[in-house]
């Protein structure tokens, strides 16, 4: 169904990318949501289906070695979503629309005609590499925006700090009350 709809939209990735630009990211996101029967992008709250897409991207983008914090357990998704809600409302809608586009993009860009969240980790990685290295500037721009949010979500988790030798609590220049708050965070307590 999605495949047929996208074929009607354009024959090549370039053509479809141009259509997305012409229609505008937000309207494209709304269209995809309607097609999938999901709630549309909206400011201040990232709908669960869009969160799933973000988490699926985070899992491969932050798929690190053993001994590093687990994306699903360290609160990275919540932090990433929280980070986006500080942006202007129209930017939030654009970012969520980007997630909606990412969900259906494998039908156009491969490596398999499936939704992004249904791809294997390896295929998701290949697909995201396509965005990162794309000749289409808007696609690379979109990847940059996604990466900023993903990394901000994951690498701000105190659980992720120890693997890179980083700590706020042990920084002698940090005063109270921040020092104690960070000590608690780095010991795994929720103080926020």
């Amino acid at each position, binding site marked *: 169904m999605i495949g047929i709809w996208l074929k009607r939209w354009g024959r090549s990735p370039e053509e479809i990318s141009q259509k997305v630009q012409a229609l505008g990211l937000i309207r494209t996101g709304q269209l995809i949501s309607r097609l999938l029967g999901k709630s549309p992008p909206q400011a201040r709250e990232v709908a669960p289906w869009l969160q799933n897409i973000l988490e699926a991207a985070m899992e491969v983008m932050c798929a690190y070695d053993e001994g590093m914090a687990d994306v699903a357990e360290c609160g990275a998704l919540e932090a990433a979503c929280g980070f986006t809600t500080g942006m202007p409302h129209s930017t939030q809608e654009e970012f969520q629309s980007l997630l909606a586009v990412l969900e259906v993009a494998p039908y156009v860009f491969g490596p398999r005609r499936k939704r992004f969240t249904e791809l294997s980790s390896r295929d998701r990685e290949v697909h995201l590499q396509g965005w990162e290295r794309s000749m289409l*500037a*808007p696609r690379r721009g979109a990847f940059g925006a996604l990466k900023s949010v993903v990394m901000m979500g994951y690498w701000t988790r105190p659980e992720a700090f120890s693997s890179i030798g980083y700590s706020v609590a042990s920084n002698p220049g*940090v005063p109270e009350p921040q020092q104690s708050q960070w000590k608690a965070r780095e010991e795994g307590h929720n103080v926020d």
Partner: protein
Amino acid sequence: MSTEPRSYPEGMTAASSRAEVPIRMKADVVVVGLGAGGGMVLHDLALAGVDVLGVEMGGHFTPEEMTLQEEKMLPSLFCEGASRATVDMAIKVMQGKGVGGSTIHNTNLCKRLPQAIVTKWARAGVEGLGPELERDFEAVEKLLNVHRIPDDRVNANNEVLLRGIESLGYEGGRLAYNRKLCKASGFCELGCPNDGKENATRRLILPALKNGARVLIEARVDRVLHEANEVVGVAGRAVDPETGADGAPFEIRAPRVVLSASATGSAAVAIKSGVPDPYALIGERLHLHPGAFVMGVFDEPIEGWLGVPQSAECTEFLDYSEGASQRVWLVSGFTHPGAAAGLMPGFGPAHGAMMGLFPHVAAIIAMVHDHQSGRVRPGEGERVHIHYQLDADELAQVALGLREAARILFAAGARQVILPTSPPRIAEDMSEVAEISAGDLGPFNPPMVAVHPMSTMWMGSDPKTSVVDSFGAHHHLKGLVVADGSLFPSSIGGPPQIPIYTMGRRVARAMVERGL
């Protein structure tokens, strides 16, 4: 941020807390935006006894509220929740929001305008750039406690740059800063938890309030109101600090309006307001000092996040002359892990392995003293559209910066240098990056960051080729004055805060001398 009702210094109110709808106020002078330029004008006018009201889009933050959480402080302290970028998204544009503007989170480097730039501006028709400018620089530096960075404030990341340039015989050295109560925490870009900065908030805006100024925060000015070619006030909307949603409308009647909303914000407000612009100049000539990060991996720990973030520079490749073939300012730089991970190339396990090197990484930013320019146009709410793409000449400067930053890192003992190009270059010695040229680069390659927007409403004596006169008064609209980074007729090739503070002082003095 806390949701509890809070109190502010006397004279400061939050627009969202005012009961009346619409909010109506009056003043003799309204200052739009309270960063380096606006803070100085507010201060100097208040001390001169003028009825002055500052209107700031962002909030007011105390040192206790600086939680040092990147994912929370960046959206609170930066315009567009730290998502601002050029329209093609290839250059991230970081600008501050809140009482103090970009001086809340800047890294406090202080330099006067280079003499070559002063001469260039004087030739372009800017008046009053002789000894009086030097006197203003001196007074501003004294007011802001500017002094040479002491030895014990040079952290390991900056030592790398100093060591590298010394061994290569390159020009450069230690800089000056405006800090006093600093405890070398390294969190400057997320807001100081120690009130260590002698910034616009601490040195100008809080003292201005004590001297009778008023400040309305969480209030975004959308339009300068004007009738029969004279300014009559400003209008805008309260902004909910929790949700970012627009609140009650406000209108402030005033015969003088000072635009100090930065080189992007002021032009955006002026264009939205239909300020007369017969030669279509407003918003043009935007300079950014676009910069790229180069990272070196060392055997010893660097822990660049600890200590004062920036204290050293290399000026070997910074030529201010017209048509110069070398225009790169190299300065040390560091960020905390959330932002750093965004700058490290790639993703997945290879990226994770690179993050594992984080404690051993030293970084240099190669910033271009840009001769080309872009333009800014207003967007919805606080959004601005920044049209700026690096052309071949500027990309050649980026390439020069990448090469020379790598050379300095190797000279300082790096065992590896990471260039965030696409694909990333991870070099074991200089020969692997020595050939990098403009042809290897392009949009997103490398990702660029800009923290110094300038020009867009520049000074000059000819109304056909400049937007305001040498002291910030608009050539065509009576009562409109500009006092921020917009005033610069060109890029300056170095840290802009001291020149902007100083221009703010000149503008305020001229207003008083001209009877406002």
